[in-house]
């Protein structure tokens, strides 16, 4: 058993739960397709809805950081999520891995800026905004070059950042709190703020 005072070393439970959070999001996406298979096609033609999904896809980074509270958690979660979607045969296959790393770095920077001491709503929203920014930059330069700048590329990038701040940032923070309330996170620092029953 490693001592609980060594705060930056990852325990086994940190590693496994971080991985599982990433994996569960992969499965939730799969189930989304199952439940909404009829509407799925529509999303491809409806860019605002796409960016909404984008925010959800960035959630593992924020939640990982908020739950594990250790350096590297946000980056690790988003990377594992990316590797999983490559293994599951996502349409972007291998390229999601570097993309996941870039996105993870965004959130990681936000938590690092507070030296892994603050995990409140503003920090979470900053983490969301920064993952959104890194995701938007990646897309801006790698995928969207041929689209009109003012009509598409810039609004798309801004929408991505807004969606990431709201859904991944604030949404991730709320979700983490809801998870802590169920008692599954009792062995993590998030749950220590919770009143005992």
């Amino acid at each position, binding site marked *: 058993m490693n001592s609980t005072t060594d705060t930056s070393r990852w325990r086994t439970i940190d590693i496994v739960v971080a991985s599982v*959070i990433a994996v569960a999001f992969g499965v939730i996406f799969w189930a989304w397709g199952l439940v909404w298979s009829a509407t799925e096609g529509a999303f491809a033609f409806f860019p605002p809805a796409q960016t909404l999904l984008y925010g959800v896809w960035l959630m593992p980074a924020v939640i990982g950081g908020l739950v594990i509270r250790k350096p590297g958690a946000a980056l690790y979660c988003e990377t594992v999520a990316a590797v999983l979607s490559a293994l599951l045969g996502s349409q972007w296959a291998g390229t999601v891995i570097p993309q996941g790393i870039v996105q993870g770095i965004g959130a990681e920077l936000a938590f690092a800026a507070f030296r892994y001491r603050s995990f409140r709503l503003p920090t979470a929203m900053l983490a969301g905004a920064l993952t959104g920014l890194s995701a938007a930059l990646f897309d801006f330069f790698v995928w969207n070059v041929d689209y009109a700048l003012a009509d598409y590329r810039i609004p798309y990038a801004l929408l991505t950042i807004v969606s990431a701040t709201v859904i991944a940032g604030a949404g991730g923070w709320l979700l983490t709190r809801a998870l802590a309330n169920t008692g599954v996170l009792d062995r993590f620092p998030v749950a220590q703020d919770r009143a005992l029953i």
Partner: protein
Amino acid sequence: MINIEPVAAPGAPLARRNPVAKVAAALVFSFTLLATLDPVAPAIAIAIELAVLPLFGIGYRVLARRALPLLLSAAGILVTLVLFAADRSGRVLLDVGPVLVSTGVLLTALGLVLRVFAVALPGVIVFATTDPTDLADALIQNAKAPARFAIGALAAFRLVPLLGQEWQMISMARRARGVDAGRNPVAKLRLFASTAFALLVGAIRRGTRLAVAMDARGFDAGTPRTVARRQRFTRADTLLITGAVVLAGAALTTSVLLGTFRPLIG
């Protein structure tokens, strides 16, 4: 049902290569191609990818099924481009309101669609032939990835099909207790959200128990780990990566020589 097992014939010469080498080759190949926006280089790359497919032991039909979602994104690109293309030069073929289709737009669309396929296929091929356990082993042994993290992630991957079943179990449990949404889409969305939340909670609970089970068998006890299965990185693996670099370079060079090359930046 979700499936993360490889679909290839395991004996095929390239499928047998070291997983790290395969992933590296796919990434190198894909990222070289990202550098251009023209249709020629990706077309050559796709031809190369289809040509090496038998060496990976994948049938063309299997690939088609795995690459099906790509068609959807291709359609998406076409629509978005018709509405928002930066370059609308060339002969105008159709002009109704915001929709403007010109030969320039179509050429760009062709380039982008081919590029999406060319960039994505190597990953599809490699991951269709790679077992997650072997990938984790190779990452630890040949890429010096930290063992605790690679194995923790691997243990979580094993839960993927189980979580898929769990989704069905949660839905059945709710129905048995009188909870359903009927045809109301709002209720359906709410039920989806609450099922997803239950899945997440269940997954984390499984994760905590799994961590305990791993600790019970001496994971992270401080003893240096040994490996049950050696993953070797041989000359053939180096050749695979070199091959990927050379072929991707050849595709780009051809495009430059033909004068079609359009760099991503600049």
